[in-house]
Structures are given as C-alpha cells and as structure tokens.
C-alpha cells in the first residue's frame, strides 16, 4: 500500500510538470463540442437529438489522445524494464498509472459535463444521464486506453496502431452510453444500460491490470 501511495504521488507530480499531457486532450474535448453547434447550426432540437453521440465520440477520442504518451517516457528511460526485473512493484506501478490516468483525463470530462449540457442544449434528465454514464464510462475508457498504451509502448509510431486496437473495444461502451442518454431524453428508464456499463467496468477492473502487466513484460523482453 505504501508503495502504491508513493507511486501515485510520483505520477501526480509528473502530471503537474507535464501539463500538456492532460490539458491537450481536455482542450480537444471542449473544442470539438463547441464547434459542433457552429457546424450543424444552432437549432436546439437537432442538437438535443445528436448530443449523446457527440459527447461520447468526443470523450472517446480525447481519452485516446491522452493514452499514447502514457508509458513512453518510462519505457525510454528504462524504468519499466527495471520494474519488470524487480517484478513485485509492477502491479502498484500499473494501478498508479490507471488511477492517475483517470484522474487526469476521465474526471475532468465529468466535471466539464455541465458546460457540455449548456453547449448542446441538454435538459435536466438528459444531463443526469450524461453525468452517470460519464462517471461509469470514463474509468472504463481509461482502463482500455492504458491497456492499449501498454501493448504499443515499444512501437515507434504507436498512435494509429493504438487507435486501431482500442477503438473496437470502445464500441460497446459507446452504444450503451448513448442509448442511456437517448432513453433519458425521452423520459424512459435507463437502468439497464447503466447496469451493463457497470458490469463492463467491473469486469475490466478485475482483468485489465493483469493484461497491462503482461503487455509490459512482453514489451521489454
């Protein structure tokens, strides 16, 4: 536990020093969402219908943008190689990466959601649904993107490979999250979609740390 806390401190320190790593994806999210009303025209009804899809596609792409550099520095410096040799601290390292990745890319999206609701003319019911889907969905996005980053860490230009690997895995989340928001906009219950999202999240939380560890081991050997 002490190891985990100290690794999390290290990651937070690095985020504080390399602000571009998490500010760029966040700005990307805001820019996409503010350009959409200008592009399709400011018709309130149209925006409300399109809002779920827009929000979630922007969230997916911005998380993907943040993922690419996640392990790059530590790989280049030999930190990952030496942690793999030491074996024991690797799980703490991966958990710290996962947690700080969500804190720096997922949580800001949740916090930005009131602004998004204003931009896209989302009503209260839809807003609550968006908040809930973002709360459940962004940790899953982080988990999947960390896995992709770990798999492509030794590839020179891993960006497009990462997108090809991870985007298919995002699709179920995209479908259920936007379905939940559409249902909420029509005042229908959306507990089912939320339950499936929670199940996907729990499943990923249980298995992805191990997948990341294996991917890192594979990449240094």
């Amino acid at each position: 536990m002490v190891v985990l806390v100290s690794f999390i401190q290290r990651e937070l320190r690095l985020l504080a020093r390399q602000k571009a790593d998490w500010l760029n994806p966040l700005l990307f999210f805001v820019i996409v969402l503010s350009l959409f009303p200008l592009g399709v025209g400011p018709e309130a009804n149209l925006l409300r219908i399109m809002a779920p899809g827009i929000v979630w596609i922007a969230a997916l792409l911005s998380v993907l943008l943040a993922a690419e550099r996640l392990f790059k520095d530590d790989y280049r410096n030999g930190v990952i190689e030496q942690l793999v040799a030491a074996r024991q601290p690797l799980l703490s390292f991966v958990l710290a990466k996962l947690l700080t990745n969500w804190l720096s890319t997922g949580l800001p999206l949740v916090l930005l959601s009131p602004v998004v609701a204003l931009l896209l003319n989302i009503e209260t019911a839809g807003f609550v649904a968006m908040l809930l889907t973002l709360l459940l969905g962004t940790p899953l996005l982080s988990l999947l993107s960390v896995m992709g980053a770990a798999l492509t860490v030794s590839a020179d230009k891993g960006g497009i490979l990462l997108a090809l690997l991870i985007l298919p895995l995002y699709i179920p989340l995209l479908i259920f999250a936007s379905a939940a928001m559409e249902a909420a906009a029509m005042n229908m219950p959306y507990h089912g979609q939320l339950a499936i999202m929670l199940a996907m999240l729990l499943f990923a939380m249980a298995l992805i740390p191990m997948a990341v560890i294996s991917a890192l081991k594979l990449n240094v050997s």
Partner: protein
Amino acid sequence: MVHILTQFPLLLRVTAFVLWRQYANMRPIFIIVDSQSVVITPQPFPVNPGQLILQGTALSCIRQDRVLFEQLNVSVQAGELVQIAGKNGAGKSSLLRILAGLAQPDDGQLGYQQHSLSDVAAEYAANLCYIGHQSGIHEQLTALENISFWRAASEVDQADDFALLAKLGLAGLEDIPCRMLSAGQQRRVSLARLWFTRRQLWILDEPFTALDKSAINMLQQHFVEHLQQGGAIVITTHQALSVSFPHQTTLELAYRW
C-alpha cells in the same frame, strides 16, 4: 434488458471476488497460480560465502539470425564479481538481460539456488537489483524524487537522502530536475540505489559509463563492501577494474558472425 438485470448480482459477486483476491494480496492471482510449486520467501541477506547463487548452463542467444553465444556456462557465487567482457555487439547486454530474467535464452537452463529460475522467479526478483543500459530515472523528476521512487519500488523505508546524495557528489543538486544534470550526474542518481537496496545479486550493465575517475573508484569500493557481506555482482564494462576484488572472474564473449 430485464433478463440481464436479474443476472447482475451474480456477475457483481464474481467480479468483486476477483477484485478482492487481486488487490488484497497486491499480487495478481495468476502469478500465485504460476509459482505454486515453491513457497516464496525472500532470502534473508547475507548468506554463507561461496554459495552458488546463479547458474546458467549451455545458454545460447540468437538475435536477427546471428548466434551471439551458444553452450555458454555462467555461475555466480556469493562474494564473487563476474565481469563480462567483449567487443561491442558481442552480446554482453543480451546475456545480462537473460540473467536478469527479462529475456528467455534460446537454449539452456538458468538456475537460482538449486531451483529452476522459472519456478522461483518471484524469489529471484526479490533478491535482484538490475540496472540496465538506460538509467531508470525520469528526467522531469528531481534526484530526490527519483531516489524516493526507487526506494518505494525496492520496498525500502523512505529516509533522508540528502546525506546519500552528498556522498555521491550531488550536494546542492537535489531539487533540480534530472534533465538539467550532466550524463555522469544522472548516472550517479541512478546508481544511488545500490546504497540502500538490500538485494544480494546486482546485475549492472556498463555502470561506469560517463562517470569520472573518483566516482568509479567510489563505486568499486562500494562493490568490495557488498562482496564482503556475501553479495554477488555481475557487470559489463570496457574499463579495466582498478580495485582488486577478492574473488573476480572474467567471462570473455567472442564476437561471432
């Protein structure tokens, strides 16, 4: 949708169980299953001198269709320093990575204290300090923060590292990001680990690179202390060692086509 909802508590319970197993032990369940045959108890250090620690028999390594070495025997005993020499590209680093358990040999066996290395991998890793060709320090972090990271990773208690850094000739540079330091100073930060880890076997890839004469001497004095306590060291270097070690072996790797 309703059908899935009724299944949900079961799914939740299964996932919670897996999560609990994983995080309660801070070790993935799959690894516990992997190494069930040998109970993992990190060896208390030091051990009796002369004891065989690491043994590689008939190792071979092939990189890009080129045989770097084959039928190579290596053994490391407590109190012994093994220097691996050879031309650039002879396979020194590849051999070290195989010995550190990072890569698999294309042929041959590795043994750690009379067990096959794959059976006791966790125990071996708990007794190993590997510093590779890259320094293992992050440029954006200061010397103190890098050392504190490696303290946590080697499960050593955090302590005041100012004295250690002063000893390494880095007094006054503790709070500067490591990218501002020279190559030799970065190497010193990286090697600071050797002063607080309590690992028996050190595997060091070119530890003297970029270090000045006094630092090389200090490091070699530290090697002697470690060997006297029953530790063992495997290093690659192109420089002749200036200190005479009580028990030193040189392994020459020939460059092969």
